[in-house]
């Protein structure tokens, strides 16, 4: 019909800086803003940028974790939005804030973006809080908690012969062993696998509950090369959602992850590293299968969400960790994944690459 390429040439956009807090079980002595501030200062210092140099700011957080409406407005005060800034917020994990910022940079409206996310799970009972995410008429009144739902998924995997309890314990042990090299992690080294929380999941199969924040800076084209020695270029990023009702889903599979990965170009070439947002050991099994990751891929060298899972930031941290490995020259092509909702309902996949060395 015409010779315009189907996929137009997109602007090159990279992660040029990443910072995160030391994730902790409680952070009583700090407000969310106080928790976030050092992280913001860290990414700005890494790039030498000031707030006023940033073209677009986008954040992810949840009012339900904060226990108050408009909780993100206080965090904005920490950013220093004066003079006024172009800014947006998603009530989602920061990985989706990064996605929004990526589209903003694609339009050419901005050359740099600051993305941050934070969450404090410590003030409330996060197992109960997350039940408020469920269908408000038919499911939420029953208060099925996040661990019970993950256990349903784990049992379905075991019943289907995709894994067994020792294999899940192996995922837990590997993750916490790898987290020894991650000074920000909350659970590190030898962690007892513990008793059943909800059969077949033991405490070791579940993520730690904790508070934390993370921030990244994105930059386009030459600006990225000025700000970072080895930028982590976003070669593709996509996200997909599945049906909410667990009864209509095959919990042993993640078609949304597979589709997002396909759209992000993850299957075009092998990746050497994958940072998966799998808060439960059983979910790593689902994701590995959906993403066709074999043993040649280094999965969750940071320890993943089993080592630190600050809700609303943990997905963004996966992208940041993957990018940081590219910055350090430890990876050339990495996949990062983020999830939201019960039993991996919504998934985002990003493919990052470093320039050839």
């Amino acid at each position, binding site marked *: 019909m015409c010779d315009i390429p189907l996929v*137009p040439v*997109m*602007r090159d956009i990279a992660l040029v800086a990443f910072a995160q807090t030391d994730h902790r079980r409680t952070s009583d002595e700090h407000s969310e803003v106080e928790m976030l501030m050092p992280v913001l200062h860290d990414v700005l210092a890494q790039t030498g940028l000031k707030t006023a140099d940033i073209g677009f*700011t986008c954040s992810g957080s*949840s*009012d*339900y974790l904060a*226990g*108050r*409406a*408009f909780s*993100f*407005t*206080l965090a*904005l*005060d920490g950013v*220093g*939005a*004066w*003079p*006024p*800034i*172009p*800014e*947006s*917020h*998603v*009530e*989602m994990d920061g990985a*989706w804030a990064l*996605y*929004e910022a990526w*589209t*903003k940079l*694609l*339009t*050419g*409206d901005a050359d740099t973006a600051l993305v941050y996310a934070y969450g404090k799970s410590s003030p409330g009972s996060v197992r109960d*809080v*997350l039940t*408020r*995410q*469920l*269908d*408000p*008429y038919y499911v939420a009144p029953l208060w099925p908690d996040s661990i019970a739902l993950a256990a349903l998924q784990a049992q379905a995997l075991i019943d289907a012969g995709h894994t067994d309890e020792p294999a899940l314990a192996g995922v837990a042990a590997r993750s916490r062993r790898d987290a020894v090299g991650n000074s920000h992690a909350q659970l590190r080294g030898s962690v007892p696998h513990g008793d059943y929380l909800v059969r077949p999941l033991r405490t070791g199969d579940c993520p730690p509950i904790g508070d934390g924040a993370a921030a990244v800076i994105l930059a386009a084209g030459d600006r990225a090369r000025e700000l970072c020695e080895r930028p982590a270029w976003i070669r593709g990023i*996509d*996200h*997909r*959602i*599945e*049906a*909410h009702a667990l009864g209509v889903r095959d919990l042993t599979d993640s*078609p949304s992850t597979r*589709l997002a990965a396909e759209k992000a170009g993850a299957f075009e070439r092998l990746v050497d590293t994958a940072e998966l947002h799998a808060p439960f050991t059983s979910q790593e099994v689902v994701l590995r299968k959906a993403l066709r990751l074999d043993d040649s891929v280094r999965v969750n060298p940071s320890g993943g969400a089993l080592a630190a899972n600050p809700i609303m930031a943990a997905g963004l941290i996966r992208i940041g960790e993957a990018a940081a490995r590219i910055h350090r020259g430890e990876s050339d092509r990495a996949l990062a994944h983020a999830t*939201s*909702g*019960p039993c991996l*309902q*919504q998934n985002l996949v990003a493919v990052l690459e470093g320039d050839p060395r």
Partner: protein
Amino acid sequence: MTKEPVAVVGIGQTRHVAARRDVSIAGLVREAARRALDDAELTWADVDAVVIGKAPDFFEGVMMPELYLADALGAVGKPMLRVHTAGSVGGSTALVAAGLVAARVHGTVLTLAFEKQSESNAMWGLSLPIPFQQPLLAGAGGFFAPHVRAYMRRSGAPDTVGSLVAYKDRRNALKNPYAHLHEHDITLEKVQASPMLWDPIRYSETCPSSDGACAMILTDRAGAARAPRPPAWMHGGAMRSEPTLFAGKDAVSPQAGKDCAADVYRQAGIADPRRDIDAVEMYVPFSWYEPMWLENLGFAAEGEGWKLTESGVTELDGDLPVNMSGGVLSTNPIGASGMIRFAEAALQVRGLAGEHQVDGARRVLGHAYGGGSQFFSMWLVGSRPPDS
């Protein structure tokens, strides 16, 4: 690198009311989305992505409700984004959706905003006590009344201006079948005799609490070419934020609002908004915000906005009609209120606003704000494609 032009080809709203007890939250949003698809003569399969917005989750008592709404909005297997930028969210949500088209990430996007206030209690949802933080006054009126008072003092506006705005908007709402309040027996005297809630804001000068949703189908040039009805074209769009409170903040005419408007006017090639813009749908939750925003948006010099209101310029048949739909004063599903402004602006330039249509409206501004007068989102839509 150039951006893909963005067109609005479908608009759908629910009939806004105090309580939609006949539908679930899913039923409410689906109704608006279905109407937007019908307007565009498209099906769910034609939608590449869904961008949804709403104000705080406490307003319905559902955390991140987009997860539960994925099925109702045909989003399964598609990307779904959830925006939350306080009261400006309806506008911001539309702008995020427009960005997906402008960046050529997607061809056709469904964007939707809603609030089902009857599921919960918005006033107390806004007033949760947090240790060691200054308690908010119950509801938004208490927060904004002092800023209105400051405006009156600064501008010397007569006390009656607020009631004129309310009287106009409530009469405009009579011409809009989707508006929540249809006060057929409204008179200026009734507005002026209504109880004083937060001095100087009277009961009839405040927005109602509504259940409602608003949806739009945004698409690229190719999508617009296939549209069965005239599209509205986006000529400019911007968001700006500033802190809630700080020394030197102008709560009456915030800098973020001025900067946001200037950015939109620059993109759209608007040299003189008063001359170049035909009508405005602005976020006026309390009557006095009409003259305040007229100044903030550059339609009047500082201290002069009330004169436009008083002289009838902002009436439906005036020289610069404002809130032809009846505005937020007549309909307020909080999270959707910003998107309704954006959608009503688009309806005007499409010539599809029905009884509240402004003849020959070619360029119309949609405006939303939120938080402590700190989050702004605006777009300018036109009847012709940009740069044509």
